[in-house]
C-alpha cells in the first residue's frame, strides 16, 4: 500500500526551478532515502510533502490524503523532523510532548500513557522535568524524535536528521529509523548526504540532481541503471562528478 506519493511536485522561486516534476511513491513500512548534493532540491521536496511549501504544480499525498487539498488530514498522519528544528526553551520534554499531543488532538485518555511510553522508549526519564534549553544535543534529539511520534503517525519524514549530531546521537537516530519502520510498520522517508546511512537502512532510494529525480529504485537497481559497481560510484556518475576529483 502506497503511503507517500510525490506526484510531479514542482517548485519555482521566481525564475529558479528548485524542484522539477519529481515523481515517486513509497510503500507502507518502507525506508526511502532521498540523496543528492547540496541545493539539489531534497529539502524543498520534503517541505512540499510536509505542507511547509506550496508546490507550483503537482501534488503530494500522505497516507492517501492530498497535502494540498486536505492538509489537516494529511498532517495528522505525518511526523516531520529536520536537523534544524529546535524545542521550546521553557517547556520540559514531558510538557513538549503533551503540547504537541494536544495540537494533534490525541484523545486525553490516550495522551498521558502515550507520553509516558515515549519517555520510557527514548530514555527521557532522567531529564523529563528539565527545561529544553538546558538539554544536551543528544537529549534534544531524543525529545524531538519522541515529539515526531506523539500522535502515532503512519508516515515519518526526516530531513537530514543526523546533520550536526555526534556519532552517538547519529547512531541513535539511525536505530530509531529502522525500529519504527521494521517493528512498527511506519513509512520513513529521509534525506541525507551520507551514503553509508543509505546503504545500511534504505529499501529504496531516489537521487535528486539539479532539481530533477535522476534515479529511483533499490540500491541494486540504481547500480544497474548506471552500470557502476557501488552506490557511491553510481551517485557520482549520476551527478556528473568524477569520483577522483573528490577522493
Amino acid at each position, binding site marked *: 500500500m502506497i503511503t507517500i506519493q510525490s506526484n510531479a511536485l514542482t*517548485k*519555482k*522561486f521566481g525564475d529558479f526551478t528548485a524542484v522539477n516534476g519529481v515523481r515517486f511513491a513509497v510503500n507502507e513500512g518502507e525506508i526511502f532515502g532521498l540523496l543528492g548534493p547540496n541545493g539539489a532540491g531534497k529539502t524543498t521536496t520534503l*517541505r512540499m510533502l*510536509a*505542507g*511547509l*511549501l*506550496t508546490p*507550483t504544480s503537482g501534488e503530494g499525498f500522505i497516507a492517501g490524503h492530498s497535502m494540498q487539498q486536505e*492538509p*489537516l*488530514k494529511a*498532517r*495528522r498522519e*505525518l511526523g*516531520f523532523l*529536520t536537523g*534544524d*528544528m*529546535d*524545542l*521550546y*526553551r*521553557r*517547556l520540559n520534554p514531558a*510538557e513538549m510532548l503533551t*503540547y*504537541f499531543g*494536544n*495540537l*494533534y*488532538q490525541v484523545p486525553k485518555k490516550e495522551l498521558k500513557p502515550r507520553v509516558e511510553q515515549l519517555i520510557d522508549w527514548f530514555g527521557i526519564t532522567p531529564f523529563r522535568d528539565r*527545561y529544553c534549553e538546558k538539554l544536551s544535543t543528544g537529549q534534544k534529539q531524543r525529545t524531538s524524535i519522541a*515529539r515526531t511520534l506523539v500522535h502515532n503517525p503512519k508516515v515519518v519524514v526526516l530531513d537530514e536528521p543526523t546533520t550536526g549530531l555526534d556519532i552517538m546521537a547519529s547512531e541513535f537516530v539511525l536505530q530509531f529509523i529502522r525500529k519504527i519502520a521494521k517493528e512498527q510498520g511506519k513509512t520513513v522517508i529521509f534525506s541525507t548526504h551520507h551514503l553509508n546511512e543509505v546503504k545500511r537502512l534504505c529499501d529504496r532510494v531516489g537521487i535528486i540532481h539539479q532539481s530533477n529525480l535522476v534515479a529511483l529504485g533499490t540500491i541494486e537497481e540504481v547500480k544497474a541503471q548506471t552500470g557502476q559497481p557501488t552506490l557511491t560510484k553510481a551517485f557520482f556518475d549520476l551527478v556528473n562528478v568524477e569520483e577522483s576529483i573528490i577522493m
Partner: protein
Amino acid sequence: MRWSIINTIYKKELTEVLRDKRTVYLVILLPFFLYPVMFAVIGLLSSSQMEKINQESVKILVNEDVKTSPLYAILQQDSTLSVEEGAFDPNGLDSTKNTIGLEIQDIQRDSNDQAQAFNVNIYYNSTKDVTESRANRINQQIEALNQQLLAQRLEERNLQSDFLTPIRVNKVDLAPPAAQMGKLIGRFLPMILLFFIFTGMIYIAIDITAGEKERQTLQTLFVSPIKVPEIITGKFLAVFTVGVVSAVMNLLSLILAFFIQVKLMGGGDGLSSMSLSVSSQGAFWLVLLILLSTVFIGGITLAVVVLANSYKESQSYVTPLMMLLLLPAIFATQPGVELTAQTALIPIVNIFLAMGEIFIGDFDPKLMALVSAMALIYAIIALVLASIIFANENVVTGQKVSMKSLFSRS
C-alpha cells in the same frame, strides 16, 4: 477555528512568558515598582536638595546706598546671607563662590512728587541653583516690602487699593473641577496608556514570532494539523493578555506613584482638587476602547515583527512602530482637534480623542459607538494582515520575507 487548539497554543505561550523571569520582571513587576520608587526617590532627593540650597550661605555685595534703605534690615535678617558693603563691579562677581550683588540707584523724580523711589539691581548667575534661588528669595522679600510701602502711601493719601487697579478682572471657569482635571489628564493619559500597552506587548510579540523563527521552532508548529488563523489567534491572545496586564500594572503603579508624590509634596488638600470622575457609562466606553486598541496594536505589532527573521532584526522595527502610535497621538493633542464623525474614522487618533472626551465627561454615545466600530474594524484588518503574513511560506521556512512575496502566489 477550533478553540481547543487556540487555547492550547495560548496556554503554552503564556506558560513560556511566565517562566521567563526577565520578561516577568521587565513587563510586569518592574513597572509596578518603578514609578512609586522613582517618584519617591525623586521627591525625596529634590526636597532634600531644596533644603540644602536654602541653607547654603551666600555672600551678598551691596553698595553704600543699601545700608540706609529698608532693604538692609531684610538682608540682615537672613542668616544665610553674609552682607559685605562697598562698591563692586557686577561683571567681576565670582559666581563660583555663591556671590550675589545688590545695588540701589535713586530715580530722578519730579520735584512735585514727594515719594521716594529706587531702582534695585540684583546681580546673580542663573546657571547656579544657589544664587538663582537666593536672588528669587530676595526678590520676593523686596516685593513684599514694596506692597507694604505702597499700602502705607495710599493710606497717607486717603486712597483705597482700588485706586491702582481701576479694572479688576475675574475669570470664572464654569467647567466642574473634574472636567478641568479630565481635560488635563485626557491629553496625556491615553498616550501613556497606549504606550504601556505597546511596550508590554512588543517584546512578547517579538519572542513568539521572530524569536521562534530564530530558534527554528516555528516549522514544528506548521507541520501540525492546525490552521494558520488558529496559530495567530492563540499567539495573539497571549500578546493581548500581556498587553492588558502590563497596562493595568503600569497604570496602577502610576496612580500609586502620583499619590506618593502628592503626599511627599505635603499636599493632603491637593488630592481632592485633583479628583477625576468618570461615569459608569464612560468607564464602559473607556474599557471597551482600551481593549479594542490593545487588539489593534497587538495585531499590527504581530504583523510587523513576524517579518523579521531574528530577535535582533525585529528590534529595528520597534521605533517605526512607536512612531506609528506617537504621530497620531501628537496630532490628537493639537488645539482645535476634536472628535467628529470624520476624525472618528482615523485609526489611533479616534481612540485618543474618544478617551479625552470620556475623561472630560462630555461625550456623545453615538460617536463612541462609531469609534468603537472603527477600532474593531481596524483591529480585524490588523489581525487578518498578521494572519496573511504569518501564512507566507517564507515566514514558515524562516526565509527573508519580501513585500512581493506577501501578495503573490508562487
